[in-house]
């Protein structure tokens, strides 16, 4: 496992010191060219986990390693070139165009006083093409639908040209068509050698793209490993406390509950 780009080593974290921690001794590794799905019920700490992976929240104990170096030692712009996050949603108070918004993904590649140049525009445009909303480039962000906005945030993350991509519920606002497209985009990124870590509620999406799975539930130790070993009926029943079955339809596995 020497090719891990992002590695959690016994990370313990909570928001309040006088409460028990939310994450307790979480360890796992994220590899280049693989997709890790973080699965668990609401409130299990999935989004918190992404914020720690980003370096935004500091663990109480334990260490997060990015390419063999503790993430807290990275200069901020270098960290921005390594890691990009796609949040679930984002508040935009002013009428930026989609292209202007995606261009902000170039910030870690520019000096603090820098202004994006033609090459940055090309990269931003290519990112929009990659997620399939290039036609919306000159639209105002507030006029986009929730799903289009989520794809735009993904394009901004791609404009950062990161090596590790963190996705927070990337399919939450997407219709079926866009969901399939997102799965294809994630597969393409994996083929390019990116390491992708995503939280997800939808077993279908997890089954379709995840190579590795991290199962989380409040008050239980996190469990990680290859998807076929970890993402099992027994594990799902345990964390969701529902009679879940994994069934195979036309050669693809689905989760159903009875």
């Amino acid at each position, binding site marked *: 496992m020497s090719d891990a780009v992002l590695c959690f080593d016994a990370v313990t974290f909570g928001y309040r010191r006088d409460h028990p921690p939310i994450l307790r001794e979480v360890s796992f590794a994220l590899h280049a060219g693989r997709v890790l799905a973080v699965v668990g019920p609401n409130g299990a700490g999935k989004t918190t986990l992404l914020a720690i992976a980003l370096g935004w929240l500091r663990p109480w104990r334990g260490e997060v390693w990015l390419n063999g170096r503790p993430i807290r030692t990275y200069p901020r712009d270098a960290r921005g070139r390594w890691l990009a996050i796609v949040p679930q949603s984002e*508040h935009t108070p002013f009428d930026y*165009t989609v292209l*202007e918004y995606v261009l902000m993904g170039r910030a870690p590649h520019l000096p603090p*006083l*820098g202004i994006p140049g033609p090459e940055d525009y090309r990269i931003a*445009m290519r990112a929009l093409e990659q997620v399939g909303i290039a036609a919306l480039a000159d639209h105002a962000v507030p*006029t986009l639908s929730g799903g289009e906005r989520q794809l735009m945030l993904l394009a901004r993350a791609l404009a950062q040209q990161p090596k590790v991509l963190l996705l927070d519920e990337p399919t939450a606002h997407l219709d079926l068509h866009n969901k399939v497209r997102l799965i294809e985009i994630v597969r393409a990124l994996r083929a390019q050698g990116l390491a992708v870590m995503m939280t997800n509620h939808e077993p279908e999406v997890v089954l379709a793209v995840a190579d590795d799975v991290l199962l989380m539930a409040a008050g239980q130790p996190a469990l990680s490993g290859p998807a076929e070993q970890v993402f099992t009926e027994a594990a799902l029943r345990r964390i969701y406390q529902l009679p879940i079955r994994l069934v195979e339809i036309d050669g693809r596995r689905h989760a159903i509950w009875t």
Partner: protein
Amino acid sequence: MLRAALAQDARRARLLWALLAGLIALFAVSILVGRYPQPGVLPWWRLAEDDLALRLVFNLRIPRLLAALLLGMTLSAAGLVLQSLFGNPLVEPGFLGVSQGAAFGAAFAIVFLSSTALVTQASAAAFALAGLGLSYALARRLRFGGWVLRLVLAGIAVSALFSAGVGLLKYIADPLTQLPEITFWLLGSLASITWPRLLNALPAVLAGLTILLLLRWRLNVLSLSEQTAFSLGSAPGRERLVLIVAAVVPTAAMIAISGLVGWIGLIVPHIARRIFNADTRFGMPAAILIGGIFTVACDNAARTLLAGEIPLGILTSLLGALIFLGLMMAQQIRARP
């Protein structure tokens, strides 16, 4: 699509140059506009013949015009910065305790200290900065809400404290001599500008505007949520503090010599955003240029329309409110095609 976007940027850049040319032309004409020897435009050749006209232009009109220009530029740039950082289009540059702090400082100097213009200016500047410092220190201690909300709440509390102080000072001020002076200061005016008073404010203003212009694109990133700005490789806390100081310190310096001139810092960023869209790379220079034009034009009216001086704050409020209403009623410029 890419070509269209680049063409639009080029168009916006050309528009900025046009605004700059307009500002220079307005400034040149304004030097000759006034009430000497009679209301209207002073013929330029009289400057060569009439010694009084020459002295009037160099000692009174030019420092005053420069003050109007810098006041408009500073308030507009600061307004754009604070509106962007706070994600709130209703924020104005003095709301972090700066305007009310300056008002208290000026009233305090008028009532208790020798009320020369220079003392009033120094006292107003000192209390304006104290207002900013107090708001910031208070925001760090509040245990409620996020960073933005805490700063807003602290600013409101500090402003309320100072405005209570202003009320008290007005109450105890001599109603025949001191009270009119306080009232006049609160309405804002550039009537008493001199070269030394302007030069006192100049370093802070030039430094602040330079920093804001250099960070004009970065401001976009810092206007996003704190975590997003962080993920884009910035240090949001530190960089935002730089922007706030670069916006508010020059504001304090200018308010100290002009009094409270309302609405410029609120309205001009809106106009700039309407014409140039949200991207502050263009919005910042646009706000600076439009603010200069708006304030120089208002001050021209303030000093020439009537034989007596009209307080500048009255005109900027009147025109600002009218433009604001017009903007709000005009239809959305960018709708989804």
